[in-house]
């Protein structure tokens, strides 16, 4: 369908065209522009992390260490882990979608602390600079987990530079979490009670609690490693009575909740997508709220399941195992609620819902394998094997990245005012789903059969599965490359979307696309529950008479 140039023009002033100088972007206080600054940064960062993965998987096609020395390979998986965890997954949904949407979803003009928001982006970039410096100087070979005493004493890599980079990046997380919490508490529009908030806001609130309570412990842990490395005397040094396992306790106290930082926002996105594309209110809204808070809390109590074989006491192992079983419950509640939402909904199959379906399927597999790992006996067998690698990638890529892409597609018309090409997007989602499973499902089998993680030399009987795994990568590559191009193109030349292309309720869909700088001409007064779809004809009438949201 051709359109005249005039039809592709979006009239009026919005946050994109208000001022177009570079300075107006780099010194902006507008949460929406800051979200885009993050989007651009983390897209580049994702490419770097993916490059490391490509190099690793190419090496792993051959069992005898074809292209890289062991040290170089160690540096590659460390780089991949550090970049993807701290500089991509943790900031992705919160700092891109969260920054953009939270003020709009609660009916505010901006975050509580707009300047702190901008500072958090600069801090993020500054931390990235240190990490990049560490990589350019030669990299780190300790693994993203920095276990002592290797990281604190014996490694020859640029550990301190990398630790400083992650430390600084942690402040970006803390500032973001702080800003979100204060904003959600203090800047909700009149009538926007806690239980009228969209689930995306609830999950980002839960995530922010983890940001502020967990990240400082990472900060001190990395500080202690750097001090030990820099001054030669150590808190984790057994020669003076120190315990390397203390590092693991402190590290995982942060890093386990960190994985919930990565998945909770993704769950929030999925809740929004499921409701929007079933055209039904989300089933069990209250349960999902409590489940989100429950995941945030329980996630702090399970970190020892990363240390079952490291030397902690067996009794601690048993307690952590039990608690890890508990933490699966709220996640399962969510999956059931999503499925119940889909039931008898008017489902259509645009790209965002395809990503949501991917999420549900792959997150369920990842979560179930997590339960397997929570049992002590199974974990003893498969720990430090590819089973773990597969488990965490099912959650982080199959879960978080799918949800991130689904959210990007769903809110793309709001962010840019334009639509993306639907057919291409659906194909990309399919490529990603197939490529992902091809790449990572064999790794469950490899791990169970005993192939250790972080090894680039392995027994020949594992080669076939490794090759199958690597063949998933080109498909994944196509799946990532397509959105990179068509979203980039559509941002400038796509069909004009209008305020509400999905016909969804929710405050963000009541304002123009792209939104004006201050979001609302007048602060809305909220009078009804979220996900206010008309009920299907064969159900009874809702208790609350649906009144209009007054946005004027």
């Amino acid at each position, binding site marked *: 369908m051709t359109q005249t140039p005039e039809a592709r023009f979006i009239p009026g002033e919005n946050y994109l065209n208000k001022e177009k100088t570079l300075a107006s972007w780099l010194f902006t206080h507008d949460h929406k522009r800051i979200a885009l600054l993050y989007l651009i940064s983390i897209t580049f960062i994702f490419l770097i992390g993916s490059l490391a993965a490509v190099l690793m998987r190419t090496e792993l096609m051959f069992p005898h260490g074809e292209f890289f020395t062991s040290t170089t390979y160690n540096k590659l998986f460390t780089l991949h882990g550090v970049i993807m965890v701290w500089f991509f997954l943790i900031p992705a949904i919160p700092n891109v979608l969260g920054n953009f949407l939270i003020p709009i979803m609660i009916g505010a003009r901006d*975050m*509580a*602390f707009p300047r702190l928001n901008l500072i958090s982006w600069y801090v993020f970039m500054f931390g990235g600079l240190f990490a990049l410096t560490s990589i350019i100087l030669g990299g780190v070979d300790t693994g993203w987990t920095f276990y002592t005493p290797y990281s604190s004493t014996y490694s020859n890599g640029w550990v301190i530079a990398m630790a400083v980079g992650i430390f600084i990046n942690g402040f970006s997380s803390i500032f973001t979490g702080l800003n979100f919490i*204060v904003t959600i508490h203090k800047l909700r529009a009149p009538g926007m009670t806690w239980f009228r908030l969209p689930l995306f806001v609830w999950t980002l609130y839960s995530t922010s609690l983890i940001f*502020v309570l967990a990240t*400082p*412990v990472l900060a001190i842990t990395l500080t202690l490693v750097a001090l030990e490395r820099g001054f030669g005397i150590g808190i984790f040094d057994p020669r003076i009575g120190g*315990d390397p396992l203390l590092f693991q306790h*402190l590290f995982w106290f942060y890093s386990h909740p960190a994985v919930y930082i990565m998945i909770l926002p993704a769950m929030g996105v999925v809740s929004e997508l499921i409701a929007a594309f079933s055209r039904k209110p989300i089933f069990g809204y209250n349960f999902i709220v409590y489940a989100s808070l429950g995941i945030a809390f329980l996630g702090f109590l399970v970190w020892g399941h990363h240390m079952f074989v490291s030397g902690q006491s067996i009794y601690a192992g048993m307690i952590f195992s039990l608690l890890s079983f508990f933490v699966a419950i709220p996640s399962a509640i969510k999956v059931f609620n999503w499925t119940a939402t889909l039931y008898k909904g008017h489902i259509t199959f645009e790209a965002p819902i395809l990503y949501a379906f991917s999420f549900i399927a792959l997150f369920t597999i990842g979560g179930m394998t997590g339960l397997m790992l929570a049992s002590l006996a199974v974990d003893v067998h498969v720990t430090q094997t590819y089973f773990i690698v597969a488990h965490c990638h099912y959650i982080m890529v199959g879960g978080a990245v799918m949800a991130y892409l689904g959210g990007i597609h769903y809110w793309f018309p709001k962010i840019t005012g334009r639509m993306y090409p639907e057919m291409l997007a659906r194909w990309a989602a399919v490529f990603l789903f197939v490529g992902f499973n091809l790449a990572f499902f064999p790794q469950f089998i490899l791990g169970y059969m005993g192939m250790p993680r972080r090894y680039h030399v392995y027994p020949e009987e594992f080669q076939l599965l490794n090759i199958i795994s690597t063949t998933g990568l080109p498909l994944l590559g196509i799946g990532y490359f397509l959105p990179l191009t068509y979203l980039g193109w559509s941002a400038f030349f796509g069909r004009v979307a209008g305020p509400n292309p999905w016909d969804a309720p929710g405050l963000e869909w009541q304002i123009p696309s792209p939104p004006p700088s201050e979001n609302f001409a007048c602060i809305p007064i909220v009078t009804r529950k979220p996900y206010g779809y008309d009920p299907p004809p064969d159900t009874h009438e809702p208790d609350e008479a649906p009144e209009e949201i007054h946005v004027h």
Partner: protein
Amino acid sequence: MSTDPEASTGLLNFPFKEARHQRESALFGMWIFLATEVLFFGGMFTAYMVYRYSHWQAFDEAGAHQESYLGCLNTAVLLTSGFTMALAVEFARKGQREWLLALFAITWLLGAAFLGIEGYEYHTKFTEHLVPGSSFHFTGSDPSSSELFFVLYFTMTGIHMFHMFVGLMLILFFGGWSWCSPRALLTPNPFEVLGLYWAFVDIVWLFLYPLFYLVHPQ
């Protein structure tokens, strides 16, 4: 000019439209930051707990070498500075610049005195070969575990000192700002936030004092 910040519009930052709302949000934000600081120091307290438990006698012996009277004096100094800072904040909220500056000055001097006494203690440790590293020399039942006591001592008090130093810089900055600009007190929020920070650093020391200065063989 009204000096009651609750009533005045003051200088409002976007997106706030009311001074009370902005103040509540600023304080809430600072309390969240202080929670992060509790956990930051908390990692080191965890290390202390673990190693004290594992090396009880070695820590007792190491603790006997501490100058507890200096630690006690320093604690009194810091408590007093917490008092003067709390008053300073009250005067800031009332817009009374002269009292604020006077109390800021006293707080600053007390804080500097604290750092001075601490510096003297560090110097004494250095001359007694109690600084961890190659020059460390200790006679006791388990010298290397006693060294761990001093590793924790220098790390925890060192990071605390860094926080004190930042606090002193901030007092200079905000004191200087209100000296130069009579309108600074139209927005008393930064002063309250600084007051919270200072009191928090005080609280951290209240836990460092018994853990490092009240440890000795029975």
